[in-house]
């Protein structure tokens, strides 16, 4: 492998990894707080992408900067997240993990098919928001779009980590999964915290949609399934419920995917899933996860 190919792949891998990491954050935040795999999270990205598809031209024709579309997408995704949580997840929360899992699956199917009814199943092309030039570094052409994507991802992850560690709201978010009853007694409105978590997670999906569309400007109603599944695997790999774990897992999955593709294009997914299995068997709670054995 030449150095330039390696470097190019590294950049691509980090780019893809940053996108996965951002989506994985959404899974991890929700799982961290209510122990539920939010299967619909992947579909929030689809919603974000469709919002971008419709709002970018609107912004442009109204003479406003295109990046304002991202704000709209963030708001739309946040709203959808809150709606899904309030009307589907909250009512079944007491019914146990099995019900929660199925409800999440059902919401995923629902959103995908709603999108198909509304927008059709043909792919749509999203116009670009950023059209930055490419620069040449050490003989390798690097698109500044990609650099920007990685930078956005990094900033958001750092911001989120600070938010969870430092702010009262973030602390409440960490307290709720520890002991829901005690949190209530301490004056934390548990339902509100859960809703906020969903809103933030879903808003991150909108940003992920932006990053995804910058690199691959195609929207389909089922784009959430594959994206979501890999990001979810990233979250589990890193240790679900742990924010740095999501980032680590995302980047790992992104790099694995890009590099395996170079050598065995047909097999990269198998390697991704295989890595997950191996990690889970060695350390069942993921790379950075804490194990929780049952007390006898």
């Amino acid at each position, binding site marked *: 492998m030449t150095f330039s190919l390696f470097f190019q792949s590294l950049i691509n891998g980090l780019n893809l990894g940053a996108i996965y990491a951002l989506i994985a954050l959404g899974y991890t935040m929700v799982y961290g707080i209510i122990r539920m795999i939010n299967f619909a999270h992947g579909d929030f990205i689809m919603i974000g992408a469709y919002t971008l598809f419709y709002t970018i031209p609107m912004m442009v024709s109204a003479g406003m900067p295109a990046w304002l579309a991202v704000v709209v997408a963030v708001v739309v995704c946040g709203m959808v997240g809150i709606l899904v949580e309030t009307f589907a997840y909250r009512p*079944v929360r007491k019914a146990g993990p099995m019900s929660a899992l199925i*409800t999440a699956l059902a*919401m995923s199917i629902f959103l995908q*098919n709603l999108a198909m009814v509304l927008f059709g199943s043909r792919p749509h092309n999203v116009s670009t928001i950023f059209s930055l030039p490419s620069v040449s570094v050490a003989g390798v052409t690097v698109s500044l779009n990609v650099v920007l994507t990685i930078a956005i991802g990094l900033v958001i992850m750092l911001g989120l980590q600070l938010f969870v560690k430092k702010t009262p709201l973030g602390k409440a978010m960490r307290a709720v999964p520890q002991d829901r009853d005690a949190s209530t007694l301490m004056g934390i409105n548990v339902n509100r915290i859960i809703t906020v978590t969903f809103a933030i997670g879903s808003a991150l999906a909108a940003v992920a949609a932006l990053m995804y569309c910058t690199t691959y400007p195609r929207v389909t109603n089922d784009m959430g399934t594959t994206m979501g599944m890999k990001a979810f695997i990233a979250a589990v790999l890193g240790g679900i419920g742990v924010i740095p774990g999501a980032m680590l897992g995302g980047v790992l999955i992104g790099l694995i995917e890009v590099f395996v593709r170079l050598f065995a294009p*047909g097999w990269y997914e198998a390697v991704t899933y295989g890595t997950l299995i191996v990690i889970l068997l060695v350390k069942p709670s993921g790379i950075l996860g804490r194990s929780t054995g049952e007390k006898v």
Partner: protein
Amino acid sequence: MTKAIKWSYLLNLVGVAAVFAILSALFAFNGFGDSTTYVEGVCTTACYTIIMVASLNLVVGFMGEFSLGHAGFVSVGAYVSAITSSALAGKGLSDLALLLVAVLAGGIAAGIAGVLVGIPALRLRGDYLAIVTMAFAEIIRVVFCNLEITGGGRTMSGILRLSSFGRTFWIMVVCVTVMFLFVRSRFGRTVQAIREDYIAAEAAGINVTFYKVLTFAVSSFFAGIGGGVYAHYMTAMIPTNFDFNYSAELLSEVIIGGTGSLTGSIIGAAFLSALPELMRQFSKYRMLAYSVVLVLVMLFRPGGIFGRWEFSLTRLLHKLTRRKENAATADPTDGPAAPLAQKGE
């Protein structure tokens, strides 16, 4: 006791045969007019879906663990049986024998896959196990996408059309009966104990890992049988047919029918696999409606429509004829109460 049991075996056989006779007669004499062939197809689909869903219920309902990768085992059965039947075609086997051999080969292959996946995967529990089963199913799909013998990622077509309605129906009956007998034996009892409390099960001397892997293998075996029948009904397939969505669909049918109720799986699978077909004119909206139904079931009946209830023809007849004193002599835990005769639904 034995007399009561023999009587109830016979009764169930008669019940199942009656359902079969009615359906076959309807198909033979064009009972549904122009759409007879279509309805027959829907019923065949329902039958092999029942096998897949009931087998998944062994893991989800009786063992109490999620599996999001059941379609992977279905695909192993489908591909292996398709390869077997095309290899054995023209070797002088009758169609029925060819189908049975192929389907059995598919089942065995899937069962072996179940053991290989189960041994590492079943060390995990809950969400993590669900994820790992999903990952294994995806790996299986990728393997089939890359192997030349399975079409190398393209459609594998030209599979013999051996799964008629009658054959599918009777294969389903045998499969469900065997699963039912499995559940009502020491194996089922052990596995349910593990579901209830695995720590207590260990303290009762149960080798938890062994029974989990065994159940997983039995479940995969029947998933493979279902897949084999599917392949010989569809005659063409592509690995992406067996993706995560298919696993999710099967799991949903288990849950809606009732976790831990084979009756629920039978009715759930029959109804839900027929529902999208019946709503074809609204095809755009059918999955939408389907997902709403799922959420509603979760809201109002989290254990599924049938919970853990099992239909029993014997019990029903006793109720109808008010022969309560006889009902008391038939031991409900040992008697093979009928799981089979509710396809008349």
